[in-house]
């Protein structure tokens, strides 16, 4: 920035309004937490109060994002830009946050987790994620990435009594910091190559002429860092262990919201900065993620690990869009992020409810006969799984459909074939869960708590989103297509 730039205006603050709202609510929770009465008799009520405040915070963030949409433009010396692209991801992240908070209400009681820091960390993590989607400055992206990552590292270890949860947290932290370092190194090299850390400036520089080797390496390193965060192969090794140990709602959260944010960053870096050598880098990562993810999932008996491998595979499908041409690739990637978030958060909401105290019931066997014991829960999970398979009338179908057509338009026939074959393989392990739920004898020794209001709302919301995206995908896709204009100039 140069010295003559004016001081921030009101409108600059509006352009980071959702982040401000989330931070304020996060801090309110932190402040209230020590003042609340957590003796056993009152604990439930206090927990719930904090939860509702967090929920209001995330809903307020959705409202703030929608309000913000009326003020497109850059803020704070072009560090942040509000456009329809960023608004899309802001709303998505805040919505995921709201659903996760809803599904955490009962979960925290069940697992006896103190809620103050939990809700605060989720909201503060959402701040980082939101910021990522609107940041135009690599350094700001890095900071936002750290905000989001650090809160998820802590959240992963929240089942303090379970060793597996601490393991998950430490593993995530160590590997995650390593990956962030890669990203930072890439930023430094990019700065060396182009003399700027602003994505627009970098885009102009890379677009104008010869691309230096330094920039190539910079892109590759940044990609490694971000690839780790979205659990794309070959940077995916941490995923199953971390997902297995972390609290289920948190897994639902960190497999959708931060991923969406990182995909937003990737879209900006790859398309807006005209990153060189994009197609082959993505081609290989996408093919590897799909294949390794699906093969890994085939042999899992723990449903959380299974969904972890499935999330690796889905990152692969999604990455296919990044190899496509901008006008097809960007909207399809955005659509995919949204529908994946809907079905995945829903699936983890079911898992977290069913897991019961200490998350004991997370193997496939425990789900035997669920269709008979709790038709509603089983039907909900079935729809999420069908959407993950990509059966028509669910969001998952159109997500895959758009990605595959985008890849075909870009003549990536080989990659599309790999993708199609992979989705056929994937059907097997998702179906296994459905088969177990409906076609096995019920296991009466597995407790089946009633569906509480919070979880019910969360399930209903994610079901509605999954089906809405499957029946009337037009609206969201149209919106996503409009934002291409903001991204590619």
């Amino acid at each position, binding site marked *: 920035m140069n010295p003559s730039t004016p001081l921030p205006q009101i409108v600059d603050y509006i352009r980071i309004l959702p982040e401000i709202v989330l931070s304020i609510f996060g801090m309110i929770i932190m402040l209230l937490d020590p003042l609340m009465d957590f003796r056993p008799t009152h604990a439930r009520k206090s927990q719930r109060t904090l939860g509702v405040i967090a929920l209001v915070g995330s809903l307020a963030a959705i409202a703030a994002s929608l309000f913000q949409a009326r003020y497109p433009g850059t803020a704070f010396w072009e560090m942040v830009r509000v456009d329809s692209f960023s608004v899309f991801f802001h709303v998505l992240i805040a919505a995921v946050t709201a659903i996760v908070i809803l599904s955490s209400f009962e979960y925290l009681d069940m697992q006896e987790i103190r809620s103050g820091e939990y809700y605060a960390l989720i909201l503060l993590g959402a701040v980082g994620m939101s910021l990522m989607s609107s940041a135009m400055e690599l350094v700001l992206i890095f900071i936002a990435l750290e905000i989001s990552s650090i809160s998820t590292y802590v959240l992963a270890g929240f089942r303090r009594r379970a060793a597996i949860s601490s393991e998950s947290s430490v593993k995530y932290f160590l590997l995650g910091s390593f990956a962030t370092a890669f990203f930072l190194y890439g930023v430094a090299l990019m700065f060396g190559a182009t003399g700027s850390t602003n994505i627009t400036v970098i885009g102009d520089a890379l677009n104008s002429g010869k691309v230096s080797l330094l920039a190539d390496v910079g892109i590759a390193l940044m990609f490694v860092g971000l690839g780790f965060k979205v659990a794309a192969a070959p940077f995916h090794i941490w995923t199953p262990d971390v997902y297995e140990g972390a609290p289920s709602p948190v897994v639902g959260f960190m497999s959708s919201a931060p991923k969406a944010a990182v995909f937003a960053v990737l879209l900006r870096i790859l398309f807006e900065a005209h990153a060189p050598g994009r197609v082959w880098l993505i081609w290989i990562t996408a093919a590897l993620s799909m294949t390794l993810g699906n093969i890994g999932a085939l042999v899992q008996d723990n449903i959380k690990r299974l969904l972890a491998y499935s999330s690796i595979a889905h990152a692969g499908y999604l990455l296919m869009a990044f190899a496509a041409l901008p006008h097809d690739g960007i909207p399809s990637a955005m659509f995919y992020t949204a529908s994946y978030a809907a079905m995945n958060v829903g699936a983890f909401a079911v898992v977290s409810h069913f897991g019961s105290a200490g998350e004991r019931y997370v193997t496939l066997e425990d789900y035997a006969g669920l269709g008979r014991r709790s038709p509603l829960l089983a039907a909900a999970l079935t729809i999420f799984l069908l959407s993950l398979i990509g059966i028509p009338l669910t969001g998952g179908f159109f997500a895959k459909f758009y990605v595959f*057509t985008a890849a075909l338009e870009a003549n990536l026939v080989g990659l599309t074939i790999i993708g199609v074959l992979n989705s056929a393989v994937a059907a097997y392990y998702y179906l296994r869960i459905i088969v177990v739920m409906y076609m096995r004898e019920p296991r009466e020794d597995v407790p089946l708590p009633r569906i509480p209001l919070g979880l019910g709302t969360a399930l209903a919301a994610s079901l509605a989103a999954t089906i809405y995206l499957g029946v009337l995908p037009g609206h969201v896709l149209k919106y996503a297509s409009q934002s291409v204009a903001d991204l590619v100039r």
Partner: protein
Amino acid sequence: MSNIPNLDGSILSLITFIPLAGALLLMLFPRRDRDIRVFALVVSLLTFAASLHLPVHFQRAQSGFQYEHDNVWIMNPNIHYHMGIDGISMWLIVLTTFLTPLCVLISWKSISERVKEFFILLLILETALIGVFVSLDLFLFYFFWEATLIPMALLIGMYGHGRRVYAAVKFFLYTMIASVFMLAAILWLYAKVGSFDFVTVENAIRSGQVQNFSSAAEWLFLGFFIAFAVKVPLFPFHTWLPDAHVEAPTAGSVLLAGVLLKMGTYGMLRFNLGLFPEQARRNAPWIMVLALIGIIYGALVAMVQPNLKKLIAYSSISHLGFVVLGIFSFTQIGLDGATYVMLAHGVSTGALFMLAGILYERKHTYEISEFGGLATPMPRYATFFLFIVLASVGLPLLNGFVGEFLVLSGAFQAKAIYGVLGATGVIWSACYLLWMYQRVFFGKVTHPSNQSLPDMNLRERTALWPAAAMALVMGVAPLLWLNSIDPSVQNALAPFSQLASRVAGR
């Protein structure tokens, strides 16, 4: 009445979605099994009544699609809610709505657990099946095509017999993986034509506007073909069928053999012939050989089955071979026959499965060796069974004869050897069905416990009478059906006119 023109536009939607609406209402029902059964029966009868509107008001002279309804569903991709029928799909719809009430009746007692879910699934399945036949948008077609899988697999997996889970998963994976190839072909066409509309795509292909079509056509043809061939099932893709049938509950078997298999042959007729006539003709020789293998192999395997239901399942493979043979003979008479066999097989094999189910309800086994001399304790049952067996064998004046005769005439016109080999299938079917009949019904009662088997009750007879009557009517008055099938077949054969003119002797 002033609302008649409106009805013509929406009658197809109505027929398609009455069962679904019924299923949704059923979800809200309390778990009183009797009410649920009655309600399911009423809904399925209502659907049948509505579907009768189609043949009554069908313009027989007019070729092309009727009762069309075309709305934009999704802008991007360009998906239309486009429905319409011709003489071929119309009768398949009526077959579906005809069989469903019978399925409800036949499941009245045999399904005693999770009754509500059963009838919900059955009605959803009916919607999906009708949807397959009314869709004129490739995407809509694919959607309904896949949608049939889930309720069917659940019906097999939840209400089937011993190895039901294995059979359900096998069924699902086989058909699902095969239809992925069809999806790929549909997407390729969409990428080039920019529309999923069947008529638009067809015209674009015929006028040669599709880029790179000549190089891709072979693959597209195969993409569609493999999905349909697995469904039919054509040899060697048939291995899922016996498992699925043996394990499925009776109603599942009836709809599986009666309608689901026809989705495959209908798809071949509509898409493989309609969109890729040249490739169809080029590939016809090996497809007809596979069909012939299916006819003969299916019959031979049926002959040695110790299990009644497996026998009927293999007989389906044999009969469906006739359909494929007729379709790929590219003759008017062959296609007429193929369509007719589809309908006739739906009625008679549906009835055979119902009869097998009735026996299973009493003895809980399908092993033929467990029976013998059943004609003594169950005379009514034996009569119905004989009647349906004869229909299935192809006795003149019953429904099986008409279709098979037409198919074989068509096959002869295409190439004499196909006709000769195909004709042996008729003999084989007489062998295995009559031999089975003899072992089950004739002679002395071999097992004392069978001495006291109750004969068919009123409900069971109510389920069988319509099928038996239909078998007779279809055998005596085939023109009732053929005069609306014929123009549509002519239409389907238009691109083959060169070939068709050679067989003008009809």
